[in-house]
């Protein structure tokens, strides 16, 4: 057994030397063959990086919603587009937040921490002197809002309980509003106009970016609930934001909130509820299939390019076997076994693939760095797992494409091969 292992080692060393020699003495041929693998690996890693990046952007967006916040709304996020199912539901009331808070205050085992009312409109218009911003997201809430939302203040402060209770005309604005209405100026304590009402800016949010590229958290104006109702009335879209104590217990928290809301709305058992409880996972369940579809299609298409590369290697290995028929015959005459010859050609094709894979990876890495330089906003992630996967794929390609020619070579008849011209 030990002698066998030794023999195997010596044979493999010899085979490695042959492979290195062959690749070095056929530089152009080896390069062209490896090029197929390089292109394949570049496209696969770029695709993998793109999918990773989509994931990353997606996670970032979801984290804006908060993993520990659930939302009571008239409609459900999980079945977006089926608006007719919710049309006849009664609107929510901002007062529910207070009712919920009272109930959870009496229950120390509650999974819920705090409920915050929110009333909002996408159709707001804000102006300062001659500058106007349309399609602003205007939002009325109370002083506890920040507990249920992501985002820090870049300047100023959030409004106080006193201002909230007094429905004072104060507001906190997002970064886009601040830079849009006050380019080069300090927006704090300036007064902006919303539907002929003047609001004093008391705080500015730090830039957050867009949610799934659709909705910007930087385009918000947040004000006390009472102030909002004075400007826009009460018939706007209402959300109860509920922060939970432990994000691992989302399911239990949702159950509890569902019970609470049914109680508040007095829905008899057995009857379907006329509200929805939403959380960021609903987006995930909607978008995951799309994301996976893109990933599968992308990997398949880019995989084709690697397949073409593999065919190139198979082809060149067949040529290489043909060219070295006499050498194969000689080696067999001198005592090389089938396995030795088989490995000789497998090692060669794997080596070409591995070199191609490494060059491809480096190329892909450079492209990624370039993209990061040119588009800093575009989230790119080049993961270690991707590197390992690419190298594994390269080796696999080498084995798959080298196998048929190598088996061919190992089965050559030594007497015929020695006579081969």
């Amino acid at each position, binding site marked *: 057994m030990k*002698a066998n292992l030794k023999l195997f080692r010596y*044979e493999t060393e010899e085979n490695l030397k042959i492979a290195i020699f062959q690749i070095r003495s056929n530089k152009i041929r080896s390069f062209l063959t490896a090029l197929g693998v390089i292109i394949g690996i570049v496209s696969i890693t770029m695709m993998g990086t793109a999918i990773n990046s989509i994931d990353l952007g997606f996670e970032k967006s979801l984290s804006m919603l908060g993993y520990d916040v659930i939302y009571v709304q008239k409609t459900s996020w999980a079945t977006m587009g089926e608006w007719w199912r919710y049309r006849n539901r009664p609107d929510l009331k901002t007062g529910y937040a207070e009712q919920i808070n009272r109930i959870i205050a009496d229950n120390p085992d509650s999974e819920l921490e705090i409920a915050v009312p929110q009333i909002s409109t996408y159709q707001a218009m804000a102006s300062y002197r001659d500058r106007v911003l349309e399609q602003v997201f205007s939002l009325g809430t109370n002083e506890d809002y920040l507990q249920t939302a992501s985002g820090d203040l870049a300047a100023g402060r959030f409004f106080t309980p006193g201002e909230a209770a007094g429905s004072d005309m104060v507001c906190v604005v997002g970064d886009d509003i601040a830079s849009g209405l006050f380019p080069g100026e300090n927006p704090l304590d300036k007064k902006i106009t919303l539907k002929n009402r003047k609001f004093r800016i008391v705080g500015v949010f730090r830039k957050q970016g867009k949610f799934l590229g659709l909705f910007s958290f930087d385009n918000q104006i947040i004000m006390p609930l009472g102030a909002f109702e004075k400007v826009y009335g009460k018939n706007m879209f209402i959300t109860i934001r509920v922060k939970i104590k432990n994000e691992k217990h989302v399911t239990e928290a949702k159950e509890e909130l569902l019970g609470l809301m049914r109680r508040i709305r007095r829905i008899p058992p057995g009857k379907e509820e006329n509200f929805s409880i939403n959380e960021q996972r609903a987006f995930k369940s909607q978008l995951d299939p799309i994301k996976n579809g893109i990933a599968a299609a992308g990997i398949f298409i880019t995989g084709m390019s690697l397949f073409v590369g593999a065919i190139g290697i198979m082809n060149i290995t067949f040529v290489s076997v043909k060219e070295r028929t006499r050498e194969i015959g000689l080696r067999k005459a001198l005592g*090389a076994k089938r396995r030795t010859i088989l490995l000789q050609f497998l090692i060669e094709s794997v080596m070409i693939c591995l070199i191609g894979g490494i060059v491809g990876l480096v190329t892909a890495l450079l492209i990624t760095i370039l993209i990061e330089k040119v588009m800093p906003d575009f989230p790119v992630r080049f993961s270690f797992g991707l590197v390992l996967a690419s190298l594994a794929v390269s080796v696999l390609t080498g084995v798959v494409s080298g196998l048929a020619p190598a088996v061919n070579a190992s089965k050559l008849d030594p007497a015929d091969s020695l006579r081969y011209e």
Partner: protein
Amino acid sequence: MNPVIINMESLCRHYEMGEQTVRALDNITIEFLRNDYAAIMGPSGSGKSTLMNIIGCLDTPTSGIYELNGRNVAEMDDDELATVRNREIGFVFQTFNLLSRLNCLKNVELPLIYAGVPPEERHERAENVLRSVGLGERLTHKPSELSGGQIQRVAIARALVNKPSIILADEPTGNLDTATSHEIMEMFGTLSEAGNTIILITHEEDIARFTRRIIRLRDGRIESDEGR
């Protein structure tokens, strides 16, 4: 009397060529003893190459017995045959068949790799055997830097390096001029005197005359077998 190294009984090798069966070897019965120095002769198509391939375990007989050192080779599989070739047989070819990219030492070491000999020992043995064929000064030369006679001596060194039972030479002087041919044949003579068993194939009478036994083939049969 020397022990029998090769024993062939009613050995046949047939090839199917379409409808026709070619009897390349037809009912060959022959023995070779240790320290034999024999030449196999015959016109082309007489079956001498086929016999050579079978003796060298590069091919197996269609029927009959071939015992090499008492083991029936006819029933071995490819890998067993490879081991037998490695241990028992040293090949010398008409076209030398050295690997041009390797120097003399590395060429001679080749059979030892497949025998599982460690690198240091490989090197030492190859060097010794190259010295014994008079190429001690040419160890790191590549075949392209050597003359035809020197190349064939490297090939002989390669055949000797694993101490085989038989040295099998297929037209070893076919690509050499007369003077060099005689030089090589003298070397075979020396090796024979040192106790090696040598079988060579040739169609040249003056080359065959160097040996002690001449076997003539015709149409796949032994025509004559003369010891001298």
